[in-house]
Every structure is written in structure tokens, then in C-alpha cells.
């Protein structure tokens, strides 16, 4: 009955349908495997290129015009300064904002505007944050091309990430804890400080660590701020110039010589190891404390 067959949505043509099924399943499996292979290949190629240059001297030397003498001492120091300061500012303001929005704010026009701007900021390209930092911190506040200006810019960049993660963590704290505290006469802030916030710490920490991993890998905003690519000193204060690991990697990658590419690969290994530690810490915290809620 060809007529009836044509009218049904799923045709009875078994052979062809079985073949189609197999092609479809294979295609999506191949897509997934391909993505995994790209990841493996990326890491393998960087390791192969950079392992030869990775040495104690590489970690403890300043950059140099001569590839054989160049190292990442100033880049590591700069990244550490940047990371520590960014951690301080972004946690202080990011968690503060999350607590306000999730626990204390009334649903009024003000909190709507704040939510809208957070959603907007989460999609702004990082290089635009660099322009903001250049205009506000470097010029208007006259901080110059300093590590402080870099850290403040990075803090603004990762704040949406921290706010969104912290709010999720606060949201998952059960209401019974708040009710119990209120019932004993605690004020809203006391409830948050002594009961809700401690319960949300694992979730917040996970978000903060992932945000820091992002900040440590960002180069675009720092280029705008004028982070120098050749820095033969270690920052000793908030207002010193600096370079950072991604900037140094960019600089070496952009040169045509093979020797500098190997240095870049070695720098990438150091950066990836750091990010790996961050991600492992986040996964560890999530698996150890995450399940309790």
C-alpha cells in the first residue's frame, strides 16, 4: 500500500532508516571524539615544543633579547601580584554584591537595574574592559600603567562571574537556616554573616577559583593598559609597572623565530599547570562539600 506509507510521518522503509540511524549516531560520536582529540593534540603539541626550554633558569631569569637567556621571572611575579590583588578586590566587592542582591535587596527598580547591568557586563568583550581601565584607572585616577590599575580592571572583568556563582551558592542554602536564625531574633545581617554565608562558602570558593583562573589567562585588557612586554624587574609596590605571563607568551609567540616559539610553549606549560591546579581545586571543593546541601 504505497499510498498509506507516504502519508505516515515515520515511513516503514526499514533498510534506509536503519542506515540513516547509523550515519547519525556515528556522526555525532565522531564530533565528540574530534573535540577530545583536539584537546589532547593541543596539550601534546605545546608540551613537545616547550618541554625542552623548561628549566629552573627559565623560571628565574628575566626576559632577554637572546632566546637562550630569556625567562619568565618578571612575568610570574607580575601575575602573582595581579592575581593576589584581583582576588582581594573581586571577592570583597563581588561577594558583597551577591549577598546584597540575594539576601538583602528588596525587589525594587534599583535591584532590577543592577541585575540588568550584571547580565550586560557578563557579555562585554574583555578588551572593552581594558579600555575602561585605561580611561578610569590609568588616566582619570592617575594610577598609571601600574599593577594596581591592572588588578582593578581584572576585578571588574571577573566580578560578574563571581556575583553569579556566589548568588547560586547563596540560593542553594536552605531557607530553614534563615528561619531558625530569624526565630532567635537575629537581624538580617547577623543571619547572613553567621549562618547563610558560612554555608555558602564552598560554592562561592568554587566560583572565585574559576574566576581567578580566567583572570590569570587574560591578556587583552592588560595590553590596553600598557602592561609592558619587556620588564626586567619584579614589581615591589602597588604603583610599579608589570608584565604578566599571558603578555609574555603573546610577545614571544608574535616573533617569527622558532626559538622564541619554544619559549612561548614553555610559558604556556607553566600557565596551564597553574590553571590545572585551580580547576582541580574547584572540582575538589565541589565534590567534598558540594553534596551536603
Amino acid at each position: 500500500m504505497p499510498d498509506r506509507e507516504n502519508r505516515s510521518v515515520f515511513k516503514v522503509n526499514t533498510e534506509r532508516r536503519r542506515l540513516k540511524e547509523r550515519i547519525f549516531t556515528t556522526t555525532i560520536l565522531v564530533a565528540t571524539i574530534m573535540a577530545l582529540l583536539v584537546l589532547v593534540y593541543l596539550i601534546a603539541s605545546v608540551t613537545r615544543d616547550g618541554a625542552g626550554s623548561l628549566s629552573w633558569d627559565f623560571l628565574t631569569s628575566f626576559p632577554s633579547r637572546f632566546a637562550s637567556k630569556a625567562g619568565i621571572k618578571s612575568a610570574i611575579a607580575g601575575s602573582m601580584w595581579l592575581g593576589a590583588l584581583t582576588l582581594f578586590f573581586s571577592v570583597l566587592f563581588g561577594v558583597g554584591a551577591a549577598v546584597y542582591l540575594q539576601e538583602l535587596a528588596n525587589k525594587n527598580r534599583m535591584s532590577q537595574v543592577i541585575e540588568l547591568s550584571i547580565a550586560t557586563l557578563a557579555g562585554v568583550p574583555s578588551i572593552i574592559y581594558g579600555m575602561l581601565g585605561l580611561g578610569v584607572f590609568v588616566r582619570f585616577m592617575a594610577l598609571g600603567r601600574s599593577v594596581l590599575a591592572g588588578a582593578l580592571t581584572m576585578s571588574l572583568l571577573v566580578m560578574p562571574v563571581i556575583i553569579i556563582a556566589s548568588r547560586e551558592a547563596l540560593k542553594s542554602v536552605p531557607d530553614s537556616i534563615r528561619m531558625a536564625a530569624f526565630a532567635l531574633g537575629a537581624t538580617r545581617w547577623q543571619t547572613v554573616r553567621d549562618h547563610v554565608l558560612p554555608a555558602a562558602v564552598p560554592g562561592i570558593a568554587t566560583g572565585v577559583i574559576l574566576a581567578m583562573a580566567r583572570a590569570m589567562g587574560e591578556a587583552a585588557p592588560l595590553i590596553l593598559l600598557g602592561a609592558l612586554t619587556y620588564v626586567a624587574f619584579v614589581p615591589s609596590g602597588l604603583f610599579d609597572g608589570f608584565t604578566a605571563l599571558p603578555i609574555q607568551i603573546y610577545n614571544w609567540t608574535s616573533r617569527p623565530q622558532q626559538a622564541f616559539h619554544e619559549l612561548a610553549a614553555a610559558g604556556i606549560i607553566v600557565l596551564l599547570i597553574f590553571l590545572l591546579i585551580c580547576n582541580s581545586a574547584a572540582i575538589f571543593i565541589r565534590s567534598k562539600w558540594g553534596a551536603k546541601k
Partner: protein
Amino acid sequence: MTSRPWAKVSNFQKFREKLVVKALLVCASISILTTLGIIFILMEESVQFFSHISLFEFFGSTEWAPLFEPRSFGVLPLISGTMLIAFGALIFALPIGLGIAIYTSQYAQGWWQKILKPVLEILAGIPSVVYGYFAITQITPLLQALFDDVEVFNAASASIVIAIMVLPTIASICDDSLRAVPKTVKDGAYALGARKSEVIISIVVPSALSGILASFILAFSRAIGETMAVTLAAGGTPNMTLNPFEGVQAMTAYIAQVSLGDVAHGSLEYQSIFAVGLVLFLMTLAMNLLSQFIVKRYARKYE
């Protein structure tokens, strides 16, 4: 408070309470200030730029030569460079990302499914400068071996690494929205005799279309705003072309190029990066608003 939780709230406590709430409100307000700050900074310098260069020249001229005489400020080559790279990236990333999402949400099971998502998300966590390195040292030589006339800096190489970067974004959001399609809807199709692939293609994917579309737009917005990989792989020559094997300059790459050089504050070159930045900001903003709108407006609600 700890020893006598029932104690009456003192005036000092009330004052402190108000103070803390105000301080936290200030923290939350920073995001408003940041948004306004971005708009203000971009506008301020752009206004000065457009007092020298007319909007007509900016959007009408097809030559971008801001640093050399005779100067010309037509932004179209930069926009076309950005678009060439972004669309190229999406051609790879959309089908593969959706395919991965279908696999992780409908086929993968047990421990394999549990580790697949986090492992793929590692791709999103790798810094873009690393992708730039990967493009220059691996992808470009590969392209040069496969095709003729591939320049050292080319758009295709940038497209491929950006596709890799945005894959997890697409896969993750699509995975979520594919999972949200309830089992009852699928069971209905199975009851009619459909095979698994037929259920997915004609029932699951169409039902999750709003989320899938939103992920595509978000990925596009990220591809436009990408800086380091684009700067390293696609080069710094403004070039209005559709040939992916030629070098192009993206908007972000121009901003980075000028910032790396020694450009005096207040000069026309300096102002030009803010004008380009404004165009970039408005484009990504429009994309993000559009994706939020699609999710809100077209998301199917299942009871």
C-alpha cells in the same frame, strides 16, 4: 549575640545593620557604575573622533589606514575582517557543538557522560593567547600543507581556533536545553514507531530550538569579541576580502595593535580605538540582548 541570641536589638546594632546594608549596596552598585563607565569612556573619546572624521567616512569608506599618510578611516574592512573570522568559526562550531550536545544529552551514559562535560569545558578554560599560539604553530602550517596560497597570517586559522574555543559554550547550553525536553514528549514519538535518531531530529531538536539559537548567538558574540587568538593568527593588515586564506585585521586586533604601539593620548589614532571599541561594544550588546530575548520569548515551558 552568640551568648544571648534572644537579646533585644540595641540601637548600635540597628545602626550597624543599616551601615552594612548600605555598604553592600555600594558593592552591588559597582556593576551599574562599570556599565555606565564603559559607555561613558567609549562615547567621550568617540565623540572627539567623530568631530574630525564624519560618520559618513567612517561607515562609507572601504579603506582603513589610520597610521600612514594618506590617512583613511573607513571601518568596513575591520568589520568585514571580524565577520569573516566569526562566521568562519561558526560554520565549524555550530554543527559540531550541536552534535556534541546531542551526544552528551541523549547518548552518553554513566561515568562517560559524567566526565565528558567537564573535560570538554577544559577547552573553554584555556586562555585565548594559548589558542593564538596553537593557530600559528599548528593550524596555519597544516592549512599551508593542504591548500595553495595560504598566507602566514590568515582568517581561516583564526576561525578554526575560535571554533574550538566556543565549542564548549555551544555544547553546554544546547546540552541543557536538549535535556529540558521532557521524556513524555519523546515517548510519544517512540510510540509512533520512530527511531532514536528520528526522535532527536524531528522532536527533541525542534523543541529545544530557542536554547540552541541562543547558544549560537552567544557564541557569535564571543567570536566577535575575541582578541588574542585573532591578533596572533589573522594578522594586522586591514583587508576587505572574503578569501579566508588571506590575512585580515579584526576590530579587536586593531585595538590591540594600536595599544601595543606608542600612541599619544589625544591623537586621532588614540581616539580611533575608542570609536572601533564602541562599534564592537554595540555589536556584542545587540547579540547578547537578542539571545536573552529569544530565551525569554520563545523558551517552551513544560508543565
